């Protein structure tokens, strides 16, 4: 009795439970929306949405492929959260990371690992700027990061359009509005597939998901096991107390943003070095960066949890894509958004679960009191 109660009220159980429940609510709500939009295909559509991801190995490969950058941006946002900062600039850092990676492998014909290194540096630099503004001039990191999202995107567009070698048509490709396909421009710039593509029967499959899991575990270790993580979290929880303890809070704010930026940068690098994606010269921010926010929230910023929440969101997206043509692309986007949105309610649901467990306990007591004034307490 006591053990089950302790287990039921333990933090990890409640937060896991909350995540599952909020996902469930999201899916239910998505089903209702499906009925509203197109009741005839609703059930079939729903089935596609939740079953496609594991339906075939190539779809599963797609899930893993899309999950990798999502997990990275999720880690980026989550890391900043843990240290008390809101990194809304993940998308900018992601874009810069992508650009640096592509420049290294296309413009300079470097191998893929140098490309990823360039992505790390680019993302870190783009994260450092809001960090420095926050630490030394007390400018809110959200404002700076939003500005640098746009600056980053337009800067990248400007640079790429002025680097002819980067564009697809330089390599005899048909388009002039996107970067060259790596298969043509520099096959060694692609992240190795290590035979996984043949195993899964999908061109999308490469080793990036494993790199990402490794990085997530690494981030977890840094935050939980090192003095550096101890300092960072202390600054996040209470800047005054960490200054009192002699911790250099300014340095830690900058470092936190640098690391957060680097993580997002890797995300960009991984996605565009897969060989299956080309950077489009568009005029809107890349969604991958923003999607990191719900990924992080859904995992309560826990780096290991981020792996699973990233996989989940990617899974839903792949399932959503399979719902065409019965449902319009926009409808699918709305449904996915609703699911993600409700998924982010996990904190609220945590509270409800706790209340529920407590209320249960309260009733038992009330009954006890009515019948027998005092029974030995249940400790």
């Amino acid at each position, binding site marked *: 009795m006591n053990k089950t109660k302790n287990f039921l*009220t333990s933090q990890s159980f409640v937060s896991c439970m909350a995540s599952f429940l909020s996902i469930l609510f999201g899916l239910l709500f998505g089903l209702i929306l499906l009925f509203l939009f197109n009741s005839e295909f609703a059930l079939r559509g729903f089935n596609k949405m939740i079953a496609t991801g594991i339906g075939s190995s190539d779809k599963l490969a797609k899930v893993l492929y899309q999950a990798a950058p999502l997990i990275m941006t999720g880690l980026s946002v989550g890391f900043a959260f843990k240290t008390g900062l809101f990194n809304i600039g993940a998308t900018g850092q992601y874009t810069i990371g992508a650009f640096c990676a592509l420049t290294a492998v296309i413009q300079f014909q470097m191998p893929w690992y140098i490309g990823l290194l360039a992505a790390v540096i680019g993302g870190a630099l783009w994260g450092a700027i809001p960090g420095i503004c926050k630490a030394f001039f007390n400018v809110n990191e959200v404002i700076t990061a939003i500005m640098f999202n746009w600056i980053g995107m337009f800067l990248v567009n400007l640079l790429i359009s002025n680097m002819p070698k980067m564009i697809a048509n330089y390599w005899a490709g048909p388009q002039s509005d996107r970067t060259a396909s790596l298969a043509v421009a520099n096959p060694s710039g692609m992240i190795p597939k290590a035979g996984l593509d043949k195993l899964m029967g999908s061109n999308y499959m490469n080793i990036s998901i494993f790199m990402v899991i490794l990085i997530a575990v690494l981030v977890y270790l840094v935050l939980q*096991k*090192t*003095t*550096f993580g*101890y*300092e960072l*979290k*202390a600054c996040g*929880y*209470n800047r*005054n*107390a*960490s*200054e*009192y*303890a*002699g*911790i250099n809070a300014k340095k830690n704010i900058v470092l936190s943003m640098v690391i957060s930026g680097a993580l997002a940068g890797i995300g960009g690098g991984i996605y565009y070095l897969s060989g299956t994606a080309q950077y489009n010269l568009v005029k809107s921010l890349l969604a991958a960066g923003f999607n990191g926010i719900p990924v992080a929230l859904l995992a309560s910023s826990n780096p290991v949890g981020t792996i699973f929440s990233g996989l989940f969101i990617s899974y839903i997206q792949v399932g959503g894509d399979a719902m065409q043509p019965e449902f319009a692309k926009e409808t699918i986007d709305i449904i996915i958004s609703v699911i993600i949105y409700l998924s982010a309610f996990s904190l609220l649901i945590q509270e409800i679960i706790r209340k529920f467990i407590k209320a249960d*306990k*309260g009733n038992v*007591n009330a009954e006890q*009191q009515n019948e027998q004034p005092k029974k030995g307490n249940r*400790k």
Partner: protein
Amino acid sequence: MSEYVIEMLNITKEFPGIKANDNITLQLKKGEVHALLGENGAGKSTLMSVLFGLYQPEKGCIKKNGEVVKIQNPNDANALNIGMVHQHFKLVEVFTVLDNIILGVEPNQMGFLKKTEARQKVMELSEKYGLKVDPDARIEDISVGMQQRVEILKMLYRDNEILIFDEPTAVLTPQEIDELMEIMRCFTKEGKSILFITHKLNEIMAVADRCTVLRKGKYIGTVEIQDTTKEELSKMMVGREVNFKVEKKKQKLRDTILKVEHVTVASKFHKNNAVKDVSFEVKGGEIVCLAGIEGNGQTEFVSALTGLEKMAEGKITLCKKDISHISIRERSKSGISHIPEDRHKHGLVLDYTLEENMILQEYWKPEFQNHGFMKRKAIREYAKRLIQQFDVRSGQGVSTIVRSMSGGNQQKAIIAREIEKKPELLVAVQPTRGLDVGAIEYIHKQLVAQRDAGKGVLLVSLELDEVMNVSDRILVMYEGEIVGEFDPKQTTTEELGLYMSGGKRQHGKAKEGA
């Protein structure tokens, strides 16, 4: 009708790992001042939160005028005419006094505020009870004592009959405390009932009619004040005899540990300097007390001493080493330990566990880390030893989140950490603020133990009793200057009070060393 206005019968409230209230009964008569006495963590706040609807008890019931009532939330409490002045005021800083008083019960006509009536009512109340306030002043601009008056007026404006004061005197000057007592007496004459939560025995003896004592979540008893003594109350509260007099060995002075020369610190709030040309010394084996009314530069001086703030001018020497311009960490390494004024803001990372807080100053030492990896086991053992040695109590031992601990135990944790650092100089800023007699006695003993071990202790305190009892030498600070130096054996609280309020000053600067 029942004799009691409010009865809380057999209340039991549990939190994970701890029974905060265990079968507690509290009965409040109409027109009395009823004190609720208990150590920190005895369950006073929990009990009041139950009465105020913030917590639901697992067992027990609440009666008003003999009828069972259910209080689900503070609005229910309000509807039953129960009002509370919280220890930390619940005021909107940027609103005016009047706006704060009417907040939540704004008189209006079709959504438009009718402030004239409200103002009239507030002014009437203010005059009737001698609670002088300026209705148009903003909360952030007025003193703490004044803010408390606003809180009291808030209760009166709502026609509350049962008034709860949660440690109302912790933030007040001696004069303000006297005024508050007078106001309380005035309320009871009108038939209002007062619940007075405190652990200051003098105040209970002065103003209360009856007193209910709690200890470690349990009900100890209710006594008539006229039939009891201070000693008896404290025994009930702590469970043993408490010694009010601090035991000190004969002083053995050693070399100078801290030397402060012409320190000046700029103020954050106004153009004048907060600390003006302050010089003094602390020798090993003495407790020097910096006395003064709040806001006379003590906070700023300590910030400059510990490195939290830069000083404009001057020199600080610690054990013959110039520390005027080195970092906080370096100062800490040189031998300063600092028990900060605000334990929540500076002293603790509230969301960290107890063990993580225990190493806040020393996590970087080789004992606790190896190439940047924390030695969890060593940390745990260290923390376990400290909480045992310093008797820090918490629900889940060293893995308790500090936020959930009681104030007294939080303070003990800080003291354990700072003393265990083995400092040369211990800077203790209001170390006993808001603590009960048991904890105060304990902390004073620790300070004296440091002194007897030949360390220097700089105590900053607003409590005159503490100043007189603990220190070997008193420096009075007024408007950023040291205006007098005293030997506690040869002065009186009245004389100190005069210097503290600027009524008198010694000519020339206080002599160094004495």
